[in-house]
């Protein structure tokens, strides 16, 4: 195994970097810039049973060091994804993670059942944390027993490992993480976006048509690090870490905090080459810091609590 390879349930990744769900569509746009086989894995946009039209525009607003989005889970629906998007991805041998959303438990189960038997799908990411839809989404992610119940039901019908994507908009994320672990989750993805708002001074109204949106980007990094650190000490399933990863140092910081792999979202918008550039810089930076393999640093921050 190479120095930068990592291995998680269902995901043998040649490097720890995947694009984050919703920031990479189904891969075709970024395939115009580079070979997607360079990625450690690919996480695609949320898929729901039916096509979703999403929210009205404006759907994005800029904030200091970050951005708000309120896309509202727009996607072409299960049938279209099965027929068009996933077959297109067959040309790559990079592991595929499919993000899944729904209004009710049955929706999640239906999508999981169909998606998880597609041969090039390696894992399901259960999106219980989308802040931008009225029903479903975040409501599943803010209550431990609801989250656990959904996880159990989805696990029962999934043929591939299930990662549960946690919401940071909660009082106690550790409680929810433990509940979904017990319900059978194979891994966790964290964090989804923080709820935020921006107001247009000219109109006095929110910039986003949906009023609130999800905050992503560099601004949220310390919140993500804290949550990953706290959760990783209390669960034994692996974590895919995300939230403001822009630089190669961020990848290492997330892994030291307890992540076993990372996802890059907003940074793709700043630079379409963000993912391959980060991957290319990784080994050099590891050399500088005297890090032998990535596997050796995962969760280092929790190892020796009383040294300092």
């Amino acid at each position: 195994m190479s120095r930068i390879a990592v291995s998680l349930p269902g995901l043998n990744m040649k490097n720890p970097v995947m694009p984050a769900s919703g920031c990479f569509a189904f891969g075709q746009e970024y395939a115009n810039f580079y070979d997607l086989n360079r990625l450690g894995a690919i996480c695609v946009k949320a898929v729901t049973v039916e096509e979703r039209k999403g929210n009205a525009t404006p759907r994005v607003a800029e904030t200091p060091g970050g951005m708000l989005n309120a896309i509202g889970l727009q996607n072409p629906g299960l049938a279209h994804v099965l027929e068009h998007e996933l077959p297109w991805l067959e040309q790559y041998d990079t592991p595929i993670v499919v993000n899944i959303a729904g209004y009710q438990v049955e929706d999640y189960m239906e999508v999981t059942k169909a998606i998880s038997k597609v041969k090039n799908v390696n894992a399901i990411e259960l999106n219980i944390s989308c802040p931008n839809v009225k029903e479903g989404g975040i409501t599943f992610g803010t209550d431990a027993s609801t989250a656990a119940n959904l996880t159990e039901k989805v696990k029962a019908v999934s043929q591939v490992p299930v990662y549960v994507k946690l919401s940071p908009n909660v009082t106690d994320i550790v409680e929810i993480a433990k509940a979904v672990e017990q319900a059978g989750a194979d891994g966790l993805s964290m964090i989804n976006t923080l709820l935020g708002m921006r107001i247009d001074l000219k109109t006095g109204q929110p910039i986003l048509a949906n009023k609130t949106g999800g905050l992503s980007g560099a601004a949220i990094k310390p919140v993500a690090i804290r949550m990953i650190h706290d959760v990783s000490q209390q669960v034994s399933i692996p974590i895919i870490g995300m939230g403001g990863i822009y630089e190669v140092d961020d990848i290492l910081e997330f892994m030291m905090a307890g992540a076993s792999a990372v996802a890059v979202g907003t940074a793709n918008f700043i630079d379409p080459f963000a993912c391959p550039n980060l991957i290319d810089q990784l080994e050099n930076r590891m050399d500088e810091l005297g890090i032998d393999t990535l596997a050796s640093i995962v969760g280092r921050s929790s190892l020796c609590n009383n040294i300092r």
Partner: protein
Amino acid sequence: MIVDDMRINEQIEIAPKIFKIELTGPLSKLLKNPGQFVNVRVGKGIDPTLRRPISICDVDVDNERLTMIYRVEGKGTKMLSEMLVGDTVNILGPLGQGFPVDAATKENTCVLVGGGVGIPPLYYLAKQLTANGVKVITILGFRSDKDIFLEKEFAELGELKITTEDGSKGIKGFVTDALETLSDYELFYTCGPKPMLRAVESIASSPGFISLEERMGCGVGACLACVCDLNERNKDTGKSYAKICSDGPVFEAGEVIL
């Protein structure tokens, strides 16, 4: 569609808060048609986060030069306007589907209707159309006399009508007031604020093409920030929406719901 650190060759304020910037780099060679845009990264840090979409106003392929004209609106364009000749700006582009120049043939008369910072992309369009032997009538709308730019440039390419809201120059009123006086044309092309596009679409007596704006995330079609609804489901893709950044910014009049 590449990412290019382009050098600022020229940066001048051509009207109050309106800047013309000329950049050099190989990206200039990749333009497919007028109306395409670039996504400008302002600064190198984390703030501003997002790139700024700016239309391409003119291209000099041989000398690898790209010209844009932009208005200082908020933080990003302010910072851009403070950059100096010799500095480099990180540009992603060319992006989107521009105006189809071939839709007009030699015998045609085309009306180009632009308002405010919707005007710049029409300039390269006008150049290409006239190069093809198409007759071009241009209508440009400004708030007032002092806000006018590109007047001489457009005038060299054909008939030019200027409207100002306060009547300080040309026709007093809006571009639509000028458009209503015309009838003999086969095609229109327009770019400007949404209310103007709506008015132009309803008044025009010919088919045409409109260029839209929307707040963007990625600029390349991946984030779905910039969608608009199609009037009918697209026959080829089965989609009921379009992405302004990658399917647009130019659409056929009537194709999308304004």
